[in-house]
């Protein structure tokens, strides 16, 4: 078969397609859904970033507070060691620093986690409010 024949065969090919309007309407709906999902993902990402920032800030603040309180805590531990028996005093002398740092770490981590969670929850609520009330 010659090239021209093939060309004319395919150029004349005009199959009956479904209505353009229906096709575009369906596509429009799907594109709208894509946009909605995209914006939700974007919001989620923003919330997570914001929550991570809040957690870091909380951790930093807790670190500053711990540093400021450290001398007071050390003094308190030492005075407790003085007033207790020799064995307990020895234990406090050996593990004094550890016994201060462990609660500081635990409290800092818990505070950061809570800050992360609360920020995430707050921003999620804000996002759902925005979705429900899209117009001012």
């Amino acid at each position, binding site marked *: *078969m010659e090239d021209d024949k093939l060309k004319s065969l395919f150029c004349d090919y005009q199959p009956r397609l479904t209505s353009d309007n229906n096709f575009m309407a369906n*596509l429009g709906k799907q594109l709208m859904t894509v946009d909605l999902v995209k914006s939700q993902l974007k919001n989620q990402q923003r919330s997570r970033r914001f929550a991570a920032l809040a957690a870091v800030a909380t951790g930093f603040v807790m670190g500053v507070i711990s540093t400021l309180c450290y001398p007071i805590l050390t003094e308190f531990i030492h005075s407790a060691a003085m007033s207790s028996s020799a064995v307990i005093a020895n234990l406090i002398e050996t593990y004094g620093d550890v016994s201060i740092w462990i609660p500081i770490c635990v409290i800092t981590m818990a505070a950061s986690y809570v800050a992360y969670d609360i920020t995430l929850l707050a921003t999620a609520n804000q996002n759902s409010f925005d979705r429900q009330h899209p117009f001012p």
Partner: protein
Amino acid sequence: MNRSQFTRHVERHQRAVRRFLTALCCGDSALADDLAQDTFIKAYLNCNELKEENKFQAWIFRIAYNTFVSNQRRFKPYEPIEEAYYIAGNDSAEESFRYQDLYDCLKKLSDKERYSLLLFYMQGYSIDEISEITETTTDAVKQRLSRGRQHLKILMERN
């Protein structure tokens, strides 16, 4: 590219894409429409990748081709139920059977031969453009076109 810009491009090219996919799916217009929808959604999701808007058509045909190929890989080809052809649809009988011979011939070609022929003869793409769309070498495209032509010739003569 925002949604309205994208929609404008789609409005301009959707008929050509659907026509190409209908021929590629050997007349299965429902499947062709589904693939066309998938094609445009994929394109919309990746429209930031398109640097030159004047290359939209070639880009969309590349996505359509990839969508068709991945659909072929995902679903095993099935034999259509012959009786289904006779169930009255919206189309007139004449319209339904108008291209039946062409579809029968296209069905017997390999996928590679079919889309090479369709891109070349139906869409008027050059061999270089087809090799870009299908991500193959120009030699491979030439070979597929030549084999496809021969096969189609034999099949059309037989029909």
